[in-house]
């Protein structure tokens, strides 16, 4: 799951997957803009068949948080 999420993030942000470290946060790289963040959420939902609760969005500010969220939602599905 970690690899899949990382791949999606790299694709949306249009950066190499090697750049996507777990600690990478919104705004750390110029590509991770607010528009990119919205695209990221949409892409994760569409590609992984999940729906991220609105109340969770606030804390999804770095790669690890996104991975954890996806794993949580997949486990609960």
């Amino acid at each position: 799951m970690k690899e899949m999420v990382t791949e999606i993030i790299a694709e949306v942000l249009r950066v190499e997957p090697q750049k996507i470290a777990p600690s990478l946060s919104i705004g750390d790289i110029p590509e991770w803009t607010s528009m990119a963040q919205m695209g990221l959420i949409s892409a994760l939902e569409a590609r992984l068949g999940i729906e991220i609760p609105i109340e969770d969005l606030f804390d999804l500010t770095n790669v690890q948080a996104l991975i954890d969220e996806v794993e949580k939602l997949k486990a609960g599905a």
Partner: protein
Amino acid sequence: MIGHSPILQKVWEYAASRPDKVALVWSDESVSYSQLKNRILAAAAALQSKGLNANDCLGIVAKKGLDFVYIYFGAQLIGVVNVVLDPEANEKRLEYIRSLTNPKMVIDSLEMVEGTTPNPICGLSQNDTADIVFTTGTTGVAKGVCLSHFNIFSSADNINGFIGNGPEEIEILGLPLCHSFGLGRLRCMLLKGATLVVLPSFANVKAFFAAIEKYHATGFGMVPAIWAYIRKFSGTRIAKYAPQIKYIEIGSAAMPIESKKELCELFPTTRICHHYGLTEASRAAFMEYHACVNDLRTIGKEVSGKVSIRIFNENGSEVQDGESGEICIKGNMVMKGYFNPEENVTAYFGEYFRTGDEGCRATDGNLYLLSRKKELINVGGKKVSPIEVEDAIIAQGVEDCVVVGVPDPDGILGEVPKAYILKGGTSLSFEEIKARIIGMLEPYKVPVAWEWIDTIPKTASGKKQRLQLKK
């Protein structure tokens, strides 16, 4: 040496009277007014050592960070003209701007030696050009707007007067510095001797809130798309900070009425000031949400007594209250003129700058904006010329097309571009066209909706009638 720049005069004054007062914060680094003055001097010296002289153009890429501030004001100190460049601008636009202004150099950083000062420059005037800022332009050709030192000071002075903020303010700046809004906030705060905490952007809402808490922020500026983003990603958590937020400045696009009402509820004691203006005539009108709660559609009235707004018909005659016409502006912050003198020929009715916006004034003096500048597409505050996008599409061998703004289905960006492709005019699919133009345009300019069209509506003279397709 600083008589030509009222803003620098104030920075120098604060450097003397309150040397340790924090002017700027970036990534946990605080810069006092005395440090700011010294770094502006050092930047000016560094620019001079690279051969820049008064009236030379300097391309300055507005990367977020304090280097931009030092270079920007350092250039102004020695009469060098800033050509402010968007870090996201595509190569075609950059080349166009470079070819017009012929900057001596284009930089986003500068090696400076602390403690150095420039050679004094004489003969500079407040009417000299401080900045050239390029607009999008309704014809698809970007126009260079020449703003004098007096213009940029006057704009900041007008804004501060309306908002009513003081030197005790601590503002969070998440806006980009390459556009009039963010750059204006920078000038406003330094003019007041206040403190500006600079963030990379608003993208990390959690970090934005953390900054409000950490620095005890009292204000910020945002575009409506950022409010929609903050709302989506944090709900109404921001209301927690309402008691400490004295002011919010909003602009660059219209805010939905329901959002205005909600902001009034979330920030009951905050001055929520929404401006109307253009790069050519910065923040010409303002309205405050609480004061206009019964008339939230208005764009308000003139920002100060030094600005006059009139509505003219196509012949340049003023219309009566209630009648619509072109919004035209005269004032201390209206540009010196366009960089290309030919563009000035039809830009004015007498002393009044023609905005190209349709509006009217009610009998109580409140102004209303009826339609945005012709067919410009407003994507979350960023203006997109349909002609630029159409040219990119047609460059792929598509016979003809027309691009218009349509409401963002997600309700965040206001408008998004939609392309109508002439049926039978290409063998490419929409996906193929999109893939080919992605490298030619900034991401926000790429159409998100596509449709075939049998015929493109045009006038008798062949001009595309885009407004007929706007939904």
